[in-house]
């Protein structure tokens, strides 16, 4: 059960990070939305690592595989390129998406994990 929960989180974060990486090539690179998402995802990955440490997974290979995937997610989160000075791109008048925000919607993909 613990392995399943951790695996689901890893799967979800992998997709979220894929989408966030694409956002770094967008105007979102200068946005506080992406800056906040980077921090949030970084914390989620860190927590996942701590949960894995605390988990009682008997199979060493399963644990090592999960650790490797978490390490890869951690690296991807760290490497998200965000501008040094960010401001909401809607407030700056650049993002005209409407009410919603791509970055928030991408983070919300984690809600699919039950």
């Amino acid at each position, binding site marked *: 059960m613990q392995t399943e929960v951790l695996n689901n989180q890893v*799967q979800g974060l992998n*997709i979220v990070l*894929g989408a966030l990486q*694409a956002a770094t090539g967008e*105007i979102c690179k200068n946005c506080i939305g992406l800056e906040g998402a980077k921090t949030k995802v970084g914390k989620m990955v860190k927590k996942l690592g701590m949960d894995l440490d605390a988990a009682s997974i008997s199979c060493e290979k399963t644990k090592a595989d999960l650790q490797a995937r978490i390490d890869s997610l951690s690296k991807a989160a760290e490497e998200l390129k965000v501008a040094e000075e960010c401001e909401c791109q809607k407030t700056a*008048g650049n993002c*005209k998406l*409407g009410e919603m925000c791509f970055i928030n*919607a991408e983070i919300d993909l984690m*809600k699919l994990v039950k």
Partner: protein
Amino acid sequence: MAKARCGRILGEDTYIEEEDTTTLYFINNLRAYQAVLAALKALDQDICHDGCSLPSTVNKVIKRLGKLKNDLKASDVAAKEKESLLSKINSFLADANRLPQDTSQTCRKSAGECKIGPGCFATGTLSLIDITEPKAPKI
């Protein structure tokens, strides 16, 4: 009339004239497809590669991009912008066509491998398109 920046697609800044909601509709949709395709590429490295939801979603994306392309062609978007946006749609279509499209494989939930719950990552990514505004103009 002055143009305002409203996004960056495939490394190129995009601009619209104030109140040009038709061009904005196409730009915002392409901004969404940029994110959706990135998420689908990540999914393709997961067990979803061997399932049926990812190919089904890819087929939907290809179909929707095809419709977007036809709508753009038929729209009154200025010729230069239209050409630029059409090339981006073609690039996204090429990206999508490199992803799995064979829906005959077994759903990974049915196969007992995907245990995320009732949701589905592949179909969930399409929600990124649904959040865009303005809604489709009458063409």
